Structure formats: C-alpha cells, structure tokens
C-alpha cells in the first residue's frame, strides 16, 4: 500500500489507487469533442465523462464513439448545470479526483498531472488552472481585458483574489466535489465556484496552465457584452435573494 505504483498508462489509476475522472461539459461541440476525448485517452485517462448539455448536433454520438461515458441532458441547462451533473455522476461512480476540462480543445491533457498533484499531495482540495501564471498562453488583448474584468468582479463580489477566475480547467478532491453545489446553471457558475471555495473553506491552489487559442475557440468564447450580462445577472440575483 505504501509503494507508489504508477499505473498511469493502463487506466486513470494514480499513485495509491486514486481514481481520476475527467468531466467535460459540452454543448454543440461535435467538431472538437472527438479529438479532445482521444487525446485524453492517449494520456492514459479512461474515465472520461462527457456531459452533453442538450446539444442539437452529434456531440453525444461522437463522444460515445470515441470511448467517453456520456451523461446527456435532455434540455440545454447551461455549463454550470452540466458541470454539476458531471461531478455528481463521477462521485456516484467512485471518483477520488475530478478534473473539469473544456470541450473545445483549449486545454492540454498533459497538464492534468500538474493540476492533480496538489490534491494528491494533500496541499489542496481544489486546483484552479490559471493562464496568467505561465507565460505561454498567448491571451489576445481583448480577451485578457474581459478576463481581468472577471477577476476584478469576482474579487469585489466574493473577496477572493485570484489571477484567473474564468478558466474551466479545475481539479477537485472527492471531498471538495461533494461539498460544492453549483446552483448557477449558466456562465455565472465560475464566480459561484470561487465563492463556495471561500464559504466552505476548501483549500485551493492556482496552477499555471496553457490555453490554446484557436479560431474555433475564439468564436465560441464569451463576448464582452455577454460578460457584462453575466455580471448583471449575478448582481441581480444577489439583490433579489
């Protein structure tokens, strides 16, 4: 039991038998989801959960054919809802560590090791990927402006100062995954996760990750207008409830 046995190549079993689940929320991502799942499997991860959030395209079958487990929302409920569904499923299936990953190919599967390492070492319950801690991510200027706006907004509303609050690359220990409850169905969940980390006193650590910006991901990303709408909805909810 105390010998460190990496069976990383065979399955998603890590030192001391930690089961790693990769959760990927996906909405109309048939163009990229196949290769994303493939690349994860090449790195030795076998428990890949794609949450198809009511896609109207072939996301579901593409994910399935590439060897992912698929949990399918019948109606589109938003990325926050899909993440929570994936985490619930992974916990039920016995996951020890849950990594959330984007469906559009922005994240690098080889960085999962670094993401889960603080959790394996017991240094943190939650790892948050940050594109601003490393220099490789070529964040477009306008995108950076919006993201830093999100960082500032999250700081003002939750009191947590992080370098990158709106990054879908995160890792959770089983304990953290069970405690976390995302109630914001749509994009507001990013701030909510940070808020819950504070309220539930979950030890967290930011881990530098690289984000690949492609024409595709740029099209799929949030526009500043949408970002403003998200901020408005968060404030509205804070006032109303």
């Amino acid at each position, binding site marked *: 039991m105390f010998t460190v046995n990496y069976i990383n190549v065979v399955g998603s079993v890590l030192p001391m038998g930690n089961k790693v689940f990769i959760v990927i929320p996906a909405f109309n991502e048939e163009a990229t989801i196949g290769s994303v799942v493939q690349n994860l499997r090449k790195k030795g991860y076998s428990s890949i959960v794609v*949450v198809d959030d009511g896609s109207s395209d072939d996301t579901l079958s593409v994910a399935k054919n590439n060897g992912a487990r698929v*949990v399918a929302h019948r*109606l589109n409920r938003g990325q926050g809802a899909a993440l929570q569904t994936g985490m619930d*499923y992974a916990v039920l299936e016995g996951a020890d560590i849950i990594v959330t990953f984007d469906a559009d190919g922005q994240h690098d599967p080889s960085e999962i090791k670094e993401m889960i390492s603080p959790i394996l070492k017991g240094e943190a319950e939650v790892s948050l990927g940050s594109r601003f801690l490393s220099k490789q991510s070529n964040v477009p200027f306008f995108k950076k402006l919006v993201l830093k706006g999100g960082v500032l907004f999250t700081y003002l509303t939750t009191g947590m100062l992080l370098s990158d609050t709106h990054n879908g690359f995160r890792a959770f220990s089983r304990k953290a995954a069970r405690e976390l409850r995302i109630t914001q169905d749509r994009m507001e969940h990013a701030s909510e996760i940070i808020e819950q980390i504070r309220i539930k006193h979950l030890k967290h650590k930011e881990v530098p990750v690289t984000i690949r910006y492609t024409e595709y991901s740029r099209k799929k990303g949030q526009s500043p207008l949408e970002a403003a709408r998200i901020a408005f909805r968060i404030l509205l909810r804070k006032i*109303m409830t």
Partner: protein
Amino acid sequence: MGDSLLFGTVSVFQIAVTLFVLFALSRALLRFKDRKISLGTLLFWAVVWIGALVVLYIPSITMPVARMLNIGRGIDVVVYLSIILVYYLLFRMYVRIEKMEQNITQAVRQSAINAARKSKK
C-alpha cells in the same frame, strides 16, 4: 376632467380605464372559475382593480393618505404605490422563475444520471 364630483362629468379617459378594469376583472374571474388561480389571488386583484376605479372617480379620496405621508398630491401617492406594487410583483415573478429553472435542472440532471448509470450496467 370632472374633478371630484361623483359621476358629474365623466371623461373619455375614465371610460377607457373603466372598460379596461372590467376586462381585467372578468379575466381574473374566469381564471378563478377555471381554478387557475386561488380565491386569495382573485380577491387580491379584485381589491387592486376596484381600488383603481375608486381613485379614478373620486381622486380626492387619496388626499388624507397623501397628507399623512407628507406627499403633496393624492395622485402622487397612487403613482408611488403602483410602482411599489409593480416592483413587488416583479420580484415575486423573479423568485418563481428562478425556482422553476432550478427544478427543471434538477429533473434533467436526475434523469441524465439515472440513464447513464443504467446503460452502463
């Protein structure tokens, strides 16, 4: 416009509002008959609309309230109260919709997880 004389002179505006109120009341009554709304809700709307009619024909009735609240004109009291009422209803609607959305998500999530776990076995 006929000032405070009850049925002294009736303006076009008063007739139009009266017709609208009667229409709104009939809708509420019909929905109550169809059991779409509760008796409480019906009474609430009845009070609101009949109150509107009373103020419409006897605007001076709002004066004592205005004086009590230190608001200059009676009509202002009505406008302020209406705005408060509208905001309250908006708030209730917001809470309701939010709750409904959460319930839908819960149902979608449950069925998705159940189906996924069943298909694996």
